[in-house]
């Protein structure tokens, strides 16, 4: 594969893949697993036929790799979101609002994993319902419905968490 072309693809895909891994894999292994996924993407890039968007295709590879990661370790549970070191220490995107970040960690910890994933794909990565469905192995209708429920649950959890703080 053309290395310049892969360099461009790397720049486009790396943040999304890193976020996906960071959210699901212990922090100390995030970089290794991300590098493995990027290398896998490099290896598979010769087979990219353009049937789906590049980010959808890359996130599917990432999802399969993370599933393999847990299968190899026979570990089912992921790291609870309210215990994420990035939230406790303050991540790169969390300016000075650390208390809100901790609050958000508690809110997201109350949401089911698939609802967090649909919020990530649809609101952050900008995938369409069809693309999100492709990554998650669901139908676009199911994705829309899941996003709607995620919204309801997020709002409810946020209100409850803020009420408890006050």
């Amino acid at each position, binding site marked *: 594969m053309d290395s310049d072309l892969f360099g461009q693809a790397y720049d486009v895909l790396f943040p999304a893949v890193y976020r996906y891994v960071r959210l699901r894999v212990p922090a100390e292994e995030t970089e290794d697993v991300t590098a493995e996924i990027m290398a896998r993407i*490099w290896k598979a890039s010769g087979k990219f036929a353009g049937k789906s968007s590049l980010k959808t295709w890359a996130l599917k590879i990432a999802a399969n790799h993370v599933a393999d990661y847990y299968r190899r370790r026979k570990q089912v549970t992921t790291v609870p979101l309210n215990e994420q070191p990035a939230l406790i220490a303050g991540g790169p995107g969390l300016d000075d609002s650390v208390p809100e970040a901790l609050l958000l960690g508690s809110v997201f910890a109350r949401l089911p994993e698939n609802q967090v994933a649909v919020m990530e794909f649809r609101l952050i990565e900008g995938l369409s319902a069809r693309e999100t469905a492709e990554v998650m192995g669901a139908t676009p209708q199911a994705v829309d419905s899941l996003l709607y429920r995620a919204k309801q649950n997020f709002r409810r959890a946020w209100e409850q968490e803020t009420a408890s703080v006050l």
Partner: protein
Amino acid sequence: MEDRELRSWEDDGDLGRVKNFFAAFSPDEAAGERVRAKTHALTQERGKAKRPLKMPRLRYIIAAAALVLICAATVNIAARGDGSYGNDNFAAAPSASYVEDSVKSYEEMGQTEAAGRDVGNYLADSSVSEPMSEPQAAAGATGAAAPREDKIIYTMEAQLRVNSVAEAMRGLEAKARALGGYVAGSRQSNQDYWQYGSLTLRIPSEEFTLFSDALAEWGTVTDRYVYSDDVTESYFDVESRLKSWQAQEDRYLEFFSAAETVEEMILIESALDEVRREKEVLEGQLKYWDSKVAYSEVRLELTQQSTDVAVTDPWQPVSFSRTLAAAKNAVIKTVSVAWNGLNRAVVFLGYALPVLILLLVLWLAARAWLRRRKARRQAALAQAVGTETQKE
């Protein structure tokens, strides 16, 4: 994302909160550099791991070579099957192989006389007397018993180690003819490391001992086996029966002359046919024995004297001249093996060429198709990267 949905997240500030939350998981610049370096290291490792089998190309070549070998072997076997391969003459392996086999088989000649018995029964019903018993007939035919000559078939099998198979064969054949004999069968095979000849000679019995003693003129007799088969008893038994049938035939001829009706003549004629058939069988048997007795069979196997130096006692040095001969022989053998190998490789290529051409065409077509597909995919990836960059 559709505006309506986006608005529902934006209206109460939840979209901002979600983005704020996920921002905590975005990579910083240092993490980006570290992962890039690790990715680079992994792709390099995979590249190296692939190198021994340069792409899948080497696998294709190995598979193609295996296919060629199988095809060539099949062609080779087929060629051997129709006998065409046997006519290949390799330049370094001049071989003159010929077979002359004119050994006659007389096995069918030992027939039983059952048919004759049937004739006898038939004649009894027709008031014609049975043939005389064999001892009677023999006594009647010969009168006083003449002194019997022994009928003994001599056969010799011998193995000779000779300096030159071709020369020895020529000499032995000439000797056999000079003694009044003939060559019944001959076979000679000359290979680089192995010369072999076999001869089947028929030698007049009276010259048999002379010929046997002369064998040593052409080489070393490594094995000699002479055996005899005394057929005297059987021979004279058959001869007696033949005479008996002869007497019977004479009597039928007398009856025939005296026959008055056509029916009688037909009946006697039929009996005469049976008698004559029986006589022919016995005469054939006697001729066969006469031939075997008159000409002894000599079967010879000739092998070339080895030119290798055989050191039987390692402590006893061989002569220098023998060492030189052995060295010369070794050089000739090595050159011959190499030359033969080259010849065989060329012939093998000849067999494999049509398959190789077919495989080359297939390979070129597959390569062109794979290249087109790779270019298409490269273009698709470039387009996808462009689209994602625009979105960013």
